[in-house]
């Protein structure tokens, strides 16, 4: 309790200086997600000599481009106080649709990607309409969409992986073109960070999660905004599915299984509140990277995959504990 005096100062509401004063505790609290990431990177590089090699870093970036986008989409839904369980299945839909269009119809791969994204958007809109206008809870509506989308992916692919011809989707993971998916993911991260910070949409989405009644009484049509977050989430999930299909040159209905939970975990590790109204794009991205790095380092250390899940679960608990602990002291400071 060494910061007792600071606490008293802030209780006097008109204290202007305290907000400008440099506080090390506050710095730690504000950046706890990044600190976890940094610690993880340091520990990983000590544990494995291959961790910080360019090849491994590139692998991580290629691997995580998809999950990061899914986490961003999930974040906006979570900000409104909702949840989107359909993202994993929508990754499968995105992968299946784009692969089939390329393989069976010989479609240009860029057009195929765009169509896959539109399909994801439509699925997301469907969930959003159920939530906004059907008064479904997000959990239930997206559970239904998740089941439907998964079924659609299996029907489309007949349950067999679609092997993609060379010179199509593999272009977006090609070194020659400087790994387009990394660039696309980076641009989207920047775009959504700016959207969250500088647009009315970004602000209203957070506001809805804080107090939907107040926002509605302020003359804002909350339903449209809530619906739109599911649409964004669906679109990003489909694109993420394409990324994963591109990396393995295979579209399959099993891509993205369990990814919805990783995306939720990423948001939570990034400090988002499942009650809504709190969370940042960059922190959710950091959360996704934390999960990705944990998987990566355990692979490098040759930990078998089942124990990996156990360890991952405990690391999530630890990260969330840290969030709870620091957000408590945030109130006190």
């Amino acid at each position, binding site marked *: 309790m060494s910061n007792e005096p600071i606490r008293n100062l*802030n*209780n*006097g*509401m*008109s*204290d*202007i200086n*305290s*907000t400008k004063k440099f506080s090390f505790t506050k710095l730690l609290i504000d950046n706890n997600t990044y600190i976890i990431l940094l610690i993880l990177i340091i520990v990983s590089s000590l544990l494995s000599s291959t961790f910080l090699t360019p090849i491994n870093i590139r692998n991580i970036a290629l691997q995580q481009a998809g999950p990061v986008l899914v986490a961003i989409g999930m974040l906006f839904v979570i900000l409104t106080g909702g949840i989107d369980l359909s993202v994993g299945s929508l990754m499968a839909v995105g992968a299946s649709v784009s692969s089939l269009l390329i393989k069976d119809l010989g479609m240009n791969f860029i057009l195929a990607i765009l169509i896959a994204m539109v399909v994801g958007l439509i699925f997301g809109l469907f969930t959003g309409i159920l939530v906004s206008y059907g008064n479904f809870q997000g959990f239930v509506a997206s559970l239904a969409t998740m089941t439907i989308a998964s079924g659609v992916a299996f029907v489309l692919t007949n349950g067999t992986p679609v092997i993609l011809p060379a010179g199509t989707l593999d272009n977006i993971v090609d070194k020659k073109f400087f790994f387009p998916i990394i660039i696309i993911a980076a641009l989207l991260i920047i775009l959504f960070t700016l959207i969250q910070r*500088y*647009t*009315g*949409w970004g*602000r*209203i989405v*957070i*506001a809805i999660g*804080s*107090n939907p*009644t*107040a*926002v*509605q*009484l*302020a*003359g*804002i*049509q909350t339903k449209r905004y809530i619906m739109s977050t599911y649409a964004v989430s669906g679109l990003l999930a489909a694109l993420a599915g394409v990324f994963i299909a591109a990396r393995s040159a295979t579209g399959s209905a099993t891509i993205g299984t369990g990814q919805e939970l990783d995306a939720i975990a990423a948001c939570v590790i990034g400090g988002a509140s499942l009650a809504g*109204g*709190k969370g940042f794009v960059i922190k959710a991205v950091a959360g996704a990277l934390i999960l990705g790095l944990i998987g990566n380092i355990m692979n490098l250390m040759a930990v078998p995959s089942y124990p990996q899940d156990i360890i991952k679960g405990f690391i999530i608990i630890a990260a969330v504990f840290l969030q709870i602990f620091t957000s408590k002291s945030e109130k006190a400071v």
Partner: protein
Amino acid sequence: MQNDCVVEMMNISKNFGGVKALQDVMLKVKKGEIHALIGENGAGKSTLMKILAGAYQKDKGQIIIDGQEVKITSPKSAMDLGVSVIYQEFMLAPDLTVAENIFIDNLVNHGMFLNWKDLRARAKEQLSKLGFGDIDPDVKVGTLSVARQQIVEICKCLARKSKVIVFDEPTAVLTFSEIKKLFSIIRQLKEDGVSIIYISHRLEELFELSDNITVLKDGKYIDTVPTASITKEELVAKMVGRQIMQLFPERQAKIGDEILRVEHLHVGDMVTDVSFSVRSGEVVGFSGLVGAGRTEAMRAIFGADKKDSGKILYFGKEVNFKSPKQAIKNGFGFLPEDRKAQGLLLEQSIRVNATLASMRKIKKFDIIGHKKEKDYVKQLLSSISTKYGSIEDNANSLSGGNQQKIALAKWLAADCKCIVFDEPTRGVDVGAKTEIYKIINRLAEEGVGIIMISSEMTEIIGMCDRAIVMRQGVVTGEINKSELSENNLIKLAMGV
């Protein structure tokens, strides 16, 4: 000191953030007495009772029950000490039966399993004691009338063998004959040696029922007097304890043309055939008891709820706002009564809150101009002398009064021509009240038509050009400024 006190609360203090809700407050309740606790809204009655009930923790002071100092750390510990509270909002589980509700914290008497027969018999016995043997213990509580739900609440307290029962505004939701019945039950409880703490705004009830009265004002203890030794006027003087006129600043508004006319408005069974009008620069008060349908009428006009029928003329044109968005677009604002639940985004910054209803002003193609917004908010807040650290601080870092000013600022920013203020000073300390009145006056002086819903009669009298009184969904009268008095308001509000 004689020690026939069941409950003694000594020097109780409690702060919420920067607001002193209670300062050195004292309350002594004897065995088998009916002790009334009165004071204006915000005087600290509820806070004191919540401390007694374990819902809040006191900052300072002692609580003595049956001569022993006790620590009340949770509602459970209060119950174990024999203290029960019947809140305005009942703490009943509507989908459970009467019997289950009465014994909710003691369902299993012996062994591991619920003995339904025994439970029913015990419930029946408890209900019969109060003369309500006709309530079926097997019926779901949600299907009972409000008055009967209250009986179930009382049985619940008795089942816990409560020594002290706090009634918080128990008659607000009851009809006249139900009130009579409740009073006879309360007297019977007194006969049985139970102590009653009775909170009510209705002075007549206190004089009819209570043995002693403790008066609180602005979080401070004023006096405890035997009811028989004081007149109504003396009591009011103690409660108010200040010149009303000082609290309400002067207003020089020109009352102009009619802005809003509402004719024969019906909303569900809460609002029946309500008609009124508001002119520019005019402050029209809506008085009445809680649940009189005032808020419901305004919400329907604002487009937050659906109206069943009725005509709304706004600047001479018939309108029918389908959503708050439409209303606000047309310059019709609404400050909701509960700022925590409906007014503010507590976890968001002051800046975000202040511009929530006027975002179109600070954005282009949905891109927010942050610099413009900051300057705008700072200017806005200084014009209504709000105290804050930084506009980036969360709204919940402010005191109640300043929070309310932020909620008001939201509507100032939205350039309204007609605004409804629903209980604008609830839970706000006296100093901040005057400042809120100043803001309302300024708006009126700028020609805004103002509707002020308030359950505080002093506020209606001090602020309004005209008051409309509602009772059970119906307008029971309209009083001009020259004839505004508590007496006239009460008569219309209570239908006597």
